[in-house]
């Protein structure tokens, strides 16, 4: 059981390294935005595996909160790429 958890943490570290490479190297802005979203999901999965590791339910709020913040930041970046600003002052 513990060996599987440690192996999955190692694999997540490898994929975090690959995602950081895409975040730094990425040729265009949407690549970097997707890499940021992917980093959020990898942090969520790390927290979940750590929660199983220490057998506690204390970090479930952390998982929900990182999910919410990752969703909102992705929406904001998408709107900024699409139209050049993020928040409308007054809708037409």
């Amino acid at each position: 059981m513990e060996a599987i958890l440690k192996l999955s943490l190692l694999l997540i570290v490898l994929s975090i390294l690959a995602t950081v490479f895409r975040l730094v190297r990425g040729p265009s802005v949407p690549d970097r935005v997707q890499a940021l979203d992917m980093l959020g999901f990898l942090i969520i999965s790390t927290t979940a595996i750590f929660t199983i590791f220490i057998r506690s339910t204390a970090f479930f709020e952390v998982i929900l909160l990182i999910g919410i913040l990752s969703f909102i930041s992705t929406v904001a970046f998408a709107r900024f790429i699409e139209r050049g600003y993020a928040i409308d002052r007054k809708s037409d």
Partner: protein
Amino acid sequence: MKKSNDVILRTVAKVASVIIFTFAINLFFSGHHNPGGGFIGGLAFAAGLTLLFLSYDIASVYNNSMLDFKVLGAVGVLIAVLTGVAAMVLGKSFLTHNVARINLPLFGATQLATSVIFDIGVALAVIGTAVTIIMSIGNDRQ
């Protein structure tokens, strides 16, 4: 500029903002023994308001909420400071808190702490500050 067509985002934001607000209140009330508290509850509430700002616009959210967020932040700081001063008036040192166990009719034996009032002040201050920052950044010019 062509007219924006974001039906999916607005439909999702109507449901998701309610969930985020509920989760923020849950985070606020779980702060005494579990992860949570006034600061992170206020930040989650401000994140829900940010989702509404992103999917709709500043004017409609501001007109529908009928709140001046600068005044809200000032009232929060005032509540937090007055909670500390009230302990000084009663002869204890600054920010001393007290805990009482009371039988409420619906919840049973409940632990009521005066630090919840301080947390309400912190949450209001964080909501006011964060939303004021976001509104003044997004409102400059387009």
